[in-house]
């Protein structure tokens, strides 16, 4: 099994939650499927009895979510966020339990989480042979400008891959917020129309990425109670990864739409 700094993913999630006492985050890797990694993460979040009552399901557009029977002891006070990623025979599942009464900042609760992992062996050649016009279909001018100042082509590729990973994680976090929180206001068609160009990742200060949403994804985020998306990249020699949190207000009757 190849090396993966799983602790970096978990601590990234905790940092994004500003170590909020009401939020518990765990990340677990698995050599099997994404669902196995998610189950392992949930084992750490739930008590052994409650874990047996939690089921991992998928929305119609492939997003995992947790279905819990009503007799789980703490389900009334906690909401659960999950995300998973898989690449190169490595799966990571991440889960966050948000206990609203214990959260210090109630208007900035995590309402969606996203995770991504990309090994360079999978995506390292992604930009090879792409024209400037084609690159502009994947990245904004600001993103390309930030990468282009690097003198080394390998560094340029690494920066762009990290941006892709952060876009993916951000996209997943907003999608989860949409599913839990705002789905009734919109149709799935609007989420389907969103794409990676709707997420701009800028990193003016090193290791302090900022997410700016636009287009369809911005509309989805607004309708889902998301008021900001925070992200952290994990950059290693053989892979890049990212964890993103969609922060906002939990809508009581947002509802599970499946």
């Amino acid at each position: 099994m190849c090396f993966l700094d799983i602790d970096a993913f978990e601590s990234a999630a905790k940092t994004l939650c500003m170590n909020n006492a009401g939020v518990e985050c765990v990340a677990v890797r698995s050599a099997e499927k994404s669902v196995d990694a998610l189950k392992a993460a949930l084992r750490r979040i739930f008590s052994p009895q409650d874990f047996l009552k939690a089921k991992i399901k998928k929305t119609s557009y492939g997003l995992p979510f947790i279905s819990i029977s009503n007799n789980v002891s703490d389900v009334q006070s906690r909401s659960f966020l999950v995300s998973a990623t898989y690449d190169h025979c490595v799966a990571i599942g991440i889960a966050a339990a948000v206990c609203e009464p214990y959260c210090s900042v109630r208007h900035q609760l995590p309402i969606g989480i996203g995770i991504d992992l990309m090994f360079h062996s999978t995506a390292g050649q992604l930009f090879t042979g792409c024209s400037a016009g084609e690159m502009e279909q994947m990245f904004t001018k600001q993103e390309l400008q930030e990468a282009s100042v690097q003198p080394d082509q390998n560094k340029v590729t690494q920066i762009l891959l990290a941006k892709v990973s952060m876009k993916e994680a951000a996209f997943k976090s907003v999608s989860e917020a949409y599913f839990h929180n705002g789905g009734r206001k919109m149709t799935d068609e609007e989420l389907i129309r969103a794409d990676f160009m709707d997420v701009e990742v800028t990193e003016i200060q090193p290791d302090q990425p900022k997410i700016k949403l636009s287009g369809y994804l911005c509309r989805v985020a607004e309708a889902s109670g998301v008021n900001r998306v925070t992200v952290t990249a994990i950059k290693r020699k053989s892979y890049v990864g990212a964890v993103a949190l969609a922060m906002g207000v939990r809508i009581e009757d947002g509802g599970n739409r499946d």
Partner: protein
Amino acid sequence: MAVSKQELEQGLYETIAKVFNKDISTVVPTIRFKEDLGIKSVHGMKLCALLNYKFNIKLSIASLIECATLGDAVNMLDQVVNS
């Protein structure tokens, strides 16, 4: 101006060959995105970018990944480009 289905097919196959580093002669309509190509969203992003640039359209990743096979994707492209 309408683009023929043959041109769309050729354009898609060239793009698939480029993104997945395949010989274009091996790209056929029955190839499945998930099972045969193992498509990840990062590949979907590049595929969309190249197709959008080539055909001057605005295709989202989700609409591409919803297609099971390359043949389905040609039909979807036909609707998007020629509608």
